[in-house]
């Protein structure tokens, strides 16, 4: 009883290979999509696992950054200046229709100075998109390729709200069309941004 039963060498090799094959299948179908958003068979997207991984990866990238980055605090902005922003000119207003092909992804952003506001409202016509709102600095001393994610809304058909830039940079949406059919995003904005447009080559066009 105390000695394990002896099995043939062939039996053990076959069992090991079967174990490895089951493990490989589980990894490819479930684990890798859920953990790293690596999804060769598109099973992760089907089971909703890839979104989970994307959300977590984004959250982990944020780790160590407060909602108010340290560089902002150290710029010594006057307390009153953070609440009141007087301008000589009227704010910008825009209404744009953004066409997206099936499965297409794009970024659409506004160039905002630190503390400046953006009011926004967008709705999708013809389908649903994955959306995430983030910003990257355009001036100042920052780590290379630094960006900050503010909100991962995930799958949705609309978003309305306001935003105040925590640092000078281009802030806006990453959108991905989740369907195979083209969609149109109708975006309305108001605010003291100096540029608004689609990101191409890392810059607002």
């Amino acid at each position: 009883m105390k000695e394990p039963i002896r099995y043939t060498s062939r039996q053990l090799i076959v069992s090991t290979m079967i174990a490895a094959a089951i493990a490989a299948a589980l990894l490819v179908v479930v684990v890798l999509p859920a953990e790293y958003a690596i999804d060769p068979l598109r099973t992760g997207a089907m089971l909703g696992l890839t979104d989970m991984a994307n959300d977590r990866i984004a959250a982990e990238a944020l780790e160590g950054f407060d909602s108010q980055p340290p560089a902002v605090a150290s710029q010594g902005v006057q307390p009153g200046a953070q609440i009141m922003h007087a301008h000589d000119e009227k704010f910008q207003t825009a209404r744009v229709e953004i066409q997206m092909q099936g499965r297409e992804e794009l970024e659409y952003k506004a160039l905002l100075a630190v503390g400046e506001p953006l009011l926004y409202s967008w709705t999708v016509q013809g389908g649903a998109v994955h959306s995430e709102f983030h910003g990257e600095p355009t001036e100042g001393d920052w780590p290379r390729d630094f960006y900050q994610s503010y909100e991962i809304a995930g799958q949705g058909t609309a978003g309305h709200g306001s935003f105040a830039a925590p640092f000078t940079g281009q802030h806006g949406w990453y959108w991905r069309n989740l369907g195979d059919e083209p969609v149109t995003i109708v975006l309305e904005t108001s605010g003291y941004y100096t540029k608004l447009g689609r990101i191409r080559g890392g810059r607002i066009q």
Partner: protein
Amino acid sequence: MIRRAPIGAYLFTSCFAVAILLLTGSDVLAHGVAQADRSFIEQATGTHLLPFMYLGAKHMVTGYDHLLFLVGVIFFLYRVRDVAGYVTLFAIGHSVTLLYGVLSGTHVNSYLVDAIIGFSVIYKALDNLGAFKQWFGVQPDARAAVLFFGFFHGLGLATKLQDLTLSQDGLVPNILAFNVGVEIGQILALSAILVAMNAWRSTLAFQRQAYAANVALMVAGFVLLGYQLTGYVWARGQTS
């Protein structure tokens, strides 16, 4: 005596692996420290023996990779004295590298360490099936293997602990308390495993299911191995 592996073994194997996956999907972290506990560890300065002890115990009880390895180790151990002997060896291995790793600041890639831990599960399952004797004609010393892999289990945690910014103030007593907690957690986890194992071993079906169970352990080990090795490659891609 030679037996054929029953087809049901593979079915059982798959179910078991899925159960492991469900476990990993919750906030149970292999070698990690739960998110909420991180801020405490990072903010704690000075000596906090009981909290660190608690965290150590929690890590052990919820660390499924340790538990899988321990299940493998005690699979065919019946006498309490044998269990105690192996577990002490594992504890020694675990403690040595945990203390040495944190105190010396040795930093090893955690994906690779966790991959080795995954491999240790596969190794132990094959050992239980008598594969090494069958393939190579020698039975490797089980005690040495437990000690050897114990080193890596400790190294894994030491690396994870160092990812946090630990305060130098009270570091040694805190790490010692954490380690005591790890051993308490190990005893608690093992008691539960032993009760379950004994109940299972007393059934007639045990010998038949033992094969399936060790193949299941192998699947879990392979999943851990693949998961961590992919993570290693993936993390390199993220930083470059």
